[in-house]
């Protein structure tokens, strides 16, 4: 993936000389800056994260022989639950177009809470999914499921897309999710924690998706089952996407950065409080997804 794609730089954006000089500094030097100012430096360099205002929404030009169209699949969640791992396995399939210069998490729909989403935007979104003849294309933005405005956009943005969601024991997921909020915790501790906690209410997220997408176009995977039997569940995902289920990726037997152990880093009191907080949602999720194996989420096994 190019630096421009990673950092969402606007195509052709002019950069001041100072910014050019700064951009040539050794990697990691930005860590000397206070947390609060790192974003300012990135923005001064014309770099924006894909979910930030200012990131480029203009799609890349299709390569020779490629066409564009609405995504065939959209992974919507959940954060810190193995979505990146599973998307790599999906993208490894030879019948899937996966241009390495495009971020797997497009975050395009993240920008439309306050902006209009009309036909021009739909066409622009489709431009983000170039594909070779005979292949499918899609994205996996794990935050989509916890952005309440995204699911209502799906019938317009991707009316035929298949939706993927991977869920993980909320207690095991939470400490991992909190790691990604270091900068936010300096400025707004409670809001950063709430953001991480909120990502674990899968039942509510799935219920919202199902009000906008037919159930037969939604596949919910359980992270723990995927780890235990990668090939079996991957074959099911391939079939769900209309792909040959005989493909077996050589790499990615296990997620590369997985942390194991339900409730790691949580003291018993906090753990009990979180179980109480999530219990009703887990029950709702189990009602929507009969395949969910609650014995793999020990704290909720008797929920």
């Amino acid at each position, binding site marked *: 993936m190019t630096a421009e794609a990673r950092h969402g730089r606007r195509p052709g954006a002019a950069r001041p000389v100072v910014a050019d000089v700064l951009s040539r500094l050794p990697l990691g030097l930005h860590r000397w800056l*206070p*947390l*609060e*100012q790192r*974003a*300012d430096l990135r923005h001064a360099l014309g770099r924006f*994260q894909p*979910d*930030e*205002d*200012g990131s480029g929404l203009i799609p890349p030009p299709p390569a020779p022989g490629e066409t564009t169209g609405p995504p065939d699949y959209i992974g919507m969640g959940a954060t810190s639950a193995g979505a990146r791992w599973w998307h790599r396995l999906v993208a490894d399939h030879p019948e899937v177009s996966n241009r390495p210069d495009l971020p797997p998490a497009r*975050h395009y729909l*993240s*920008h*439309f*809470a*306050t*902006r*209009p*989403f*009309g036909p021009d935007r739909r066409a622009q979104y489709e431009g983000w999914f170039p594909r070779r003849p005979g292949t499918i294309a899609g994205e996996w933005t794990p*935050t989509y499921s*916890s*952005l*309440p*405005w995204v699911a*209502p*956009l799906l019938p317009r943005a991707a009316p035929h897309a298949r939706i993927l969601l991977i869920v993980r024991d909320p207690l095991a997921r*939470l*400490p991992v999710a*909190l790691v990604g909020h270091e900068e*936010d*915790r*300096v*400025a*707004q*501790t*409670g*809001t950063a*924690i*709430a*953001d991480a*906690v*909120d990502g674990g209410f899968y039942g509510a997220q799935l219920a919202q998706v199902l009000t906008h997408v037919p159930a037969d176009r939604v596949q919910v995977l359980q992270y723990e089952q995927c780890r235990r039997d990668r090939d079996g569940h991957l074959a099911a995902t391939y079939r769900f996407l209309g792909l040959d289920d005989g493909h077996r990726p050589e790499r990615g037997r296990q997620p590369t950065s997985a942390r194991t152990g339900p409730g790691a880093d*949580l*003291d018993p*009191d*906090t753990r009990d*409080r*979180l179980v*109480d*907080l999530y219990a009703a949602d887990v029950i709702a999720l189990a009602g929507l997804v009969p395949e969910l194996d609650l014995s793999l989420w020990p704290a909720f096994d008797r929920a």
Partner: protein
Amino acid sequence: MQKVGRMARCGARGRCGPLWRQGALWHGEAVRPPRAARAAFRSLSPRTRTALLHRAGYFAPWEGGFDFTPPALGPGETAGPPDFVGIGVQKGGTSWWYELIADHPGVTARPDLHKERHYLSHFGTEPFGPAQVARYHGWFPRRRGTITGEWTPDYLAYPWVAALLARSAPDARLLVILRDPVERFRSGLTFRLSQGALATESTVADAVRQGFYARSLRRYLRYFDPDRMLVLQYEQCSADPAGQLAGTYRFLGLDDAHRPDSLRTAVNASGTKRPLDPEAGLRLAQLYADDMDEVFTLFPHLDRSLWPSARAGGA
């Protein structure tokens, strides 16, 4: 500079210094830099200002570095659990309403303590035992014969706070002011961005989530009887502040004949709001429709006609 309330001065090694009066860093008697220095400081970006304050050891209660050692008691003061806790909502007129409550002679509201203690905000994934409860109580000094409390508008949206409040202040009376959720969203997002928050999906998502009032209030109703909860409507408070304030005083067990000098002081108004496209506004209203329906069912004294988004979204 934003009103920071009681700020603790903590050095890099955790050394804590004196308490500061509300806004004292720039406006009080203890520190008063020259006018030019204050103007130069204000001209910096919010994030740069915050970075400088943090480097100097100043943190606000909602920030990670704040020192939660309770304040020293004044002469004749005692500490204990809060008698009332305002739990929401951000940009719902809570600073205005808190000041009207604090004006009552039967209420202790020390000017060096921020109305938003934010203490419970920090315990989403931290242990909260008797020591933490006692520390929380230390933040509520009061004179004999008076009541005291806090109003942290974010508490409503933080899903872990209801349980902690039931544990640390089971007899407290809860206050919440609701406002048309789409208007609240606009105002809340404008406010967060003006305070230096990055314009990211999580900032927007936080602003959206805070408008799902029924979902949040249900958590409190698990732990608190409805008669211990006063749900006010911002639009009703704006239209009839005297009547609504008298009702608030009665709810808190205070003499409802008290009349503050001014009922209409604007506090923390957001200024020019971030634009919201009409089509996106309609989508937001539709997003909130079911939740608004539940709000009006749970609290029938609220006036649906005062929320334009309830009509637009079909609630």
